[in-house]
């Protein structure tokens, strides 16, 4: 896959593998991200993986676009694409009221029972595509076809942190109290902020995620033990 390079201001290079969302492009993004991280040359400060492209940020005092592009091309020449290499992460979720205000609506929209909606969500394995919107907001792809619903017309305000929300093919576990137009159908006691300074965020881009059902008592017990934020 031959990428396109775009110079951004004085401090970044954007490497784009496709114009539209494409799993092959995302595999390339992850592989290139890992290749650059494995041997970070002087001047490159960070990389940001997204859906079809990778941002490579650098210190303009130490290097420049053409040196960074040359390094990226050398990484690409020996790039190995492995489709599944991330860690598998388990996230517990309680689908009971009051944590699932939109579960009924998702069931109605998809013509399924609420249990069938939950079971479809539990049966799927999700991929961590990228982070965005706010700290710790990891976009997970892999919502099964039969429970995909569009965004709601009007966002709901003050949705609590830990809400498990879906829209289209994507699922997300919120980390902050925020408005959302996605369907809220569960609450997780598992915080994306781990509190571990060596691994402060639960997921890395490229990880896979499955959900595990818990009841309200378990939620109450676990959320008491877990610190959010």
């Amino acid at each position: 896959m031959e990428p396109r390079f775009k110079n951004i201001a004085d401090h970044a290079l954007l490497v784009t593998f496709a114009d539209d969302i494409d799993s092959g492009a995302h595999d390339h993004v992850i592989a290139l991200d890992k290749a650059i991280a494995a041997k970070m040359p002087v001047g490159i400060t960070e990389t940001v993986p997204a859906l079809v492209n990778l941002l490579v940020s650098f210190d303009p005092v130490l290097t420049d676009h053409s040196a960074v592009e040359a390094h990226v091309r050398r990484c690409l020449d020996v790039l190995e694409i492995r489709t599944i290499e991330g860690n598998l992460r388990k996230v517990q979720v309680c689908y009971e009221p009051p944590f699932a205000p939109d579960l009924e609506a998702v069931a109605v929209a998809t013509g399924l029972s609420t249990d069938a909606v939950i079971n479809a969500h539990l049966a799927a394995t999700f991929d961590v595509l990228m982070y965005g919107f706010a700290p710790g907001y990891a976009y997970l792809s892999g919502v099964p076809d039969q429970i995909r619903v569009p965004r709601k017309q009007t966002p709901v305000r003050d949705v609590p942190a830990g809400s498990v929300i879906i829209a289209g093919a994507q699922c997300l576990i919120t980390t902050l109290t925020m408005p959302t137009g996605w369907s809220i159908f569960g609450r997780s006691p598992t915080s994306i902020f781990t509190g571990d300074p060596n691994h402060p965020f639960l997921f890395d881009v490229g990880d896979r995620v499955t959900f595990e059902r818990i009841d309200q008592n378990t939620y109450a017990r676990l959320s008491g033990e877990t610190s959010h934020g």
Partner: protein
Amino acid sequence: MVEALFSVSFAGPLVTVQDAGRPGNMRYGVPASGPMDRLAFDAAHAALGNAQGLPAIEISLGGLMLHCKEGSVTLAITGGNFVVEHNGQKTSSWIILTINKGERLAIRAGTEGSWAYLAFAGRLLSEDWLGSQATHATSGFGGGAVQTGQNLVVADAAIRNDRLGQIPEAGFVASDAIRAVIGPQDQHFDENAVACFLSETFTVTDAYDRMGMRLKGPLLGLDGALSIPSEPIVRGSVQVSGDGVATVLLADHQTTGGYPKIATVISCDTDRLAQWRAGQPVRFTSVSSQQAINDVRRFMAQKTQYLAQISVARGSLEQRLASENLIHGCVFD
């Protein structure tokens, strides 16, 4: 340990603790944050003789009023042209002074500039998140917003009489159009949009916070492709929403987003723009990415030299009078 204790008599919105920021976490949705005007922030610390990057308070147009409850400490105020009132005496920013127990300090918006910095000769204590006290304003993570009624503690509070007085402002900051490199999604705009972006005058609106600055001006037409896959965003990205309105993203920007970016402001001009106020006109000029690097390298070299100059203690008032007397022959000339 010598501490200075302040109570916050008043803090406007968007007054926050900031340090040099937490770069390296954009992949987790976390922008670097840190000061909106990095030069003014660094100057405050340099002029006090502090190490670079320590926490300071970023003051918005809303202003800040402090009451010193315990101890004494020397402090520096830089940034926009703000009005400083110390114990009833009016002065302006780019000043170093010492505040003592019982005294009051007020910092209010003056004739120009949107952000001022208050740095202490000591360590401002606040919460740390991911190794930095910089506040991410949307979440409140990090040192946090400074709130009316709270206390502020400065540990290892020092008095530095040899640094009191005015801080010389940097003379090398550009004053013309804001330099930007076109793209990275200029291909998603209609053929007039880039020309229009570079030739027309925009205006800063009051839809302006630490995340970004919305501009008023000609609408920038998108070329059909309204939904691009979410892409990384940087500080300085000029993103254009579906209705053609441009927003310049700043220190607390979202890290990814699906709006196309017509251009990206170069780093030193991002901070210059951040000091502008609602109603001020903005013009953009296009530079190549190589020119951008040359310009930023020159800026950084000048900045390093400037910070080194102002970090030299000028001596106490007596010492300065004596040295000037030797040079000029007359103190009261």
